[in-house]
């Protein structure tokens, strides 16, 4: 979750009004890092969002036709859907694509009150959320039609954005209560993902028989996922406290796609297979600057984290599609993409929890750390103390928790004008699909956990087990320890039910071709409803209660593409 900072503001809010002058004093910064704040993978930390795993549609024509392209002959960009489809090239072609996006959102449900402590609540109102606007390149491509071994063939080389890190948003909520001396405080949070994963693809396609073509893509994928989050608390326009978080990690992969197109007069049928591979997440870096702590506002933490390297397996996916040329002016197309993300696994270094109590008589004085196997010194210490079973196993594989996602795409194209020198097509389409996002659900998930917080409740259960089993040898104590480990690995939350986020995308656009030059403009609108945490914090030292919101969001993409034929 990019909202890892959100709940930290509660600490600052406690003394907000009594300490205004103190807020201006010098702030002492303590730098802390693992193991006090454990490292996890990007997936476990929630940094992977709903939009950064699936490949984007590409090409003005296909994009405007709802993202259909498996059986639509096209230029170099068509390799994204089906490598055999690039046989639509009939001259050397250079293309480029760029997009601008923005959006709007609203909360469908938000709690009236936020719980700060066991007894303190703040009234919450006027919750607003707005997706941020930004821009991104999409592709540069080169396509060359050739004759290969006596048959029609084509090569394509492209640099393209496979997926953005995500779409950012801004959230605001008004809080009021005894803790704020009944004054109105505005809590704001901005989330800005940047960059993403790109690919260099080399495609070759060739006609096999008059009715069938084959093609293959070789994709070298790589990039940096970046995300910045900033948080602030303001009263009467004055920002009293602020914090920030940043995350980045490199991602790379190599993948192969294969595809075929069969044509029977005006009818075309196509299919593609995107072979399974691993996404390698490496060299992560995380920095969290907390809001200065109340009541003196003179002390904050700089938390340095290093997200664990991980490999996320991408399952083999496939797509099928068809297109039909009703006349030389009208083409209809439909695609289906099957993406079984539910078969995706994460492999990373093994981590083990270490729970201790500063005061053995007081379970509230707990401290907690996740020790990765790469921390050899501490790992060996825990192993020597009998805290780790099978310490020689230093790698862990587990289900990624992602749901299967599918995509149905339907589109059409109509040439208003079509002549030797000039073409003017209009296009429209619709795309129904879901995104591989983990939906988070608030615990308490262990019905036997006591206390109003699942995490502290689980700590107490573990503590009680230790009273009767100091060596934690029994199954019950081990189960409590495993439960704590799972919570710690996944941000102290349990992912009870992972449901994909359903999206509906409506597309429309037009193109202009004048002789060797063509340009396309496409407008896409994606609507979805999603549950999210707000004011959430997964730090065990602070442990506030997250609030679950239900939001409706729309994202608008305006895509420009241009081609020149030589």
């Amino acid at each position: 979750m990019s909202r890892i900072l959100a709940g930290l503001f509660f600490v600052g809010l406690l003394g907000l009004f009594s300490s205004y002058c103190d807020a201006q004093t010098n702030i002492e910064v303590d730098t802390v890092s693992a193991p006090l704040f454990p490292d996890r993978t990007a997936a476990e930390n929630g940094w992977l969002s709903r939009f950064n795993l699936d490949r984007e549609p590409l090409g003005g024509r296909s994009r405007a036709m709802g993202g259909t392209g498996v059986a639509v002959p096209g230029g170099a960009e068509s390799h994204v859907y089906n490598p055999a489809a690039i046989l639509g090239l009939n001259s050397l072609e250079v293309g480029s694509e760029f997009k601008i996006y923005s959006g709007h959102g609203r909360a469908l449900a938000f709690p009236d009150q936020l719980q700060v402590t066991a007894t303190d609540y703040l009234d919450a109102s006027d919750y607003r959320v707005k997706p941020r606007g930004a821009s991104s390149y999409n592709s540069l491509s080169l396509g060359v039609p050739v004759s290969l071994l006596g048959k029609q063939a084509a090569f394509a080389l492209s640099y393209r954005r496979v997926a953005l890190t995500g779409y950012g948003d801004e959230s605001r909520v008004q809080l009021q209560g005894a803790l704020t001396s009944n004054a109105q405080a505005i809590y704001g949070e901005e989330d800005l993902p940047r960059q993403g994963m790109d690919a260099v693809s080399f495609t070759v396609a060739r006609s096999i028989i008059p009715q069938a073509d084959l093609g293959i893509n070789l994709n070298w994928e790589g990039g940096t996922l970046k995300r910045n989050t900033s948080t602030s608390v303001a009263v009467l326009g004055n920002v009293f406290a602020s914090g920030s978080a940043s995350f980045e990690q490199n991602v790379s992969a190599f993948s192969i796609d294969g595809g075929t197109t069969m044509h029977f007069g005006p009818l075309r049928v196509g299919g593609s297979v995107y072979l399974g591979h691993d996404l390698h997440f490496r060299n992560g870096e995380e920095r969290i600057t907390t809001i200065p702590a109340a009541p003196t506002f003179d002390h904050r933490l700089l938390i340095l984290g290093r997200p664990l390297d991980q490999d996320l397996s991408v399952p083999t996916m496939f797509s099928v599609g068809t297109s039909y040329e009703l006349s030389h002016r009208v083409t209809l197309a439909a695609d289906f993409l099957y993406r079984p993300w539910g078969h995706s696994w994460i492999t990373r270094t093994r981590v083990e929890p270490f729970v201790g109590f500063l005061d053995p008589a007081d379970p509230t004085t707990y401290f907690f750390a996740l020790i990765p196997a790469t921390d050899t010194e501490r790992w060996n210490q825990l192993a020597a103390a009998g805290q780790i079973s099978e310490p020689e196993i230093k790698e862990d594989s587990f289900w990624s928790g992602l749901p299967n996602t599918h995509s149905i795409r339907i589109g059409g194209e109509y040439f208003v004008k079509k002549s030797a020198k000039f073409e003017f097509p209009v296009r429209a389409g619709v795309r129904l699909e879901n995104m591989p996002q983990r939906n988070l659900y608030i615990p308490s998930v262990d019905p036997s956990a006591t206390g109003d917080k699942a995490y502290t409740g689980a700590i107490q259960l573990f503590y009680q087990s230790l009273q009767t089993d100091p060596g934690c040898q029994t199954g019950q104590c081990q189960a409590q320890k495993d439960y704590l480990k799972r919570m710690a690995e996944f941000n102290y939350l349990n992912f009870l039910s992972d449901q994909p986020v359903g999206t509906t995308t409506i597309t429309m656009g037009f193109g202009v071709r004048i002789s060797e030059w063509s340009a396309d403009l496409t407008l896409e609108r994606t609507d979805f409803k999603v549950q999210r945490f707000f004011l959430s914090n997964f730090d065990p030292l602070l442990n506030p209660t997250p609030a679950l919101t239900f939001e409706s969001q729309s994202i608008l993409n305006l895509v420009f593409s241009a081609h020149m034929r030589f």
Partner: protein
Amino acid sequence: MTDFGAEKNIKVTLRDGETVKGHIQAGSWVTYTSIGKVYRAQVDSVSLGGDIVLKRPYLQEEYGRYSLQHERMSQSLLEIPSGVERIEISAYKIVQVEEVAFDRARSARAAGFWGLTLFVAASILSARL
């Protein structure tokens, strides 16, 4: 009529409306527009008498508005089949040879395309370097 100005961009119009555009010199690639079809072809030779021979033609575009004419011509000897290896243009068919002047609309389109392409390239480089 026989001087095609090899260094110039030339448009040659034939008496049946067909055109050849490009640098008319051996080895250059030119655009040959026939009825309903546009070919890219390489100039094989240009004789002193003005005969132009094109080789390695490939069909670049075909237009539906000429489908009837094309169908009718497919029955005639005038059709140039898509699989031909040479196109011979006799000098006596040439009715006009003109230099292709600066085309503002075309230049604007090219500027738009290269502007977007360079912008995308710069965006990629700035993100990756």
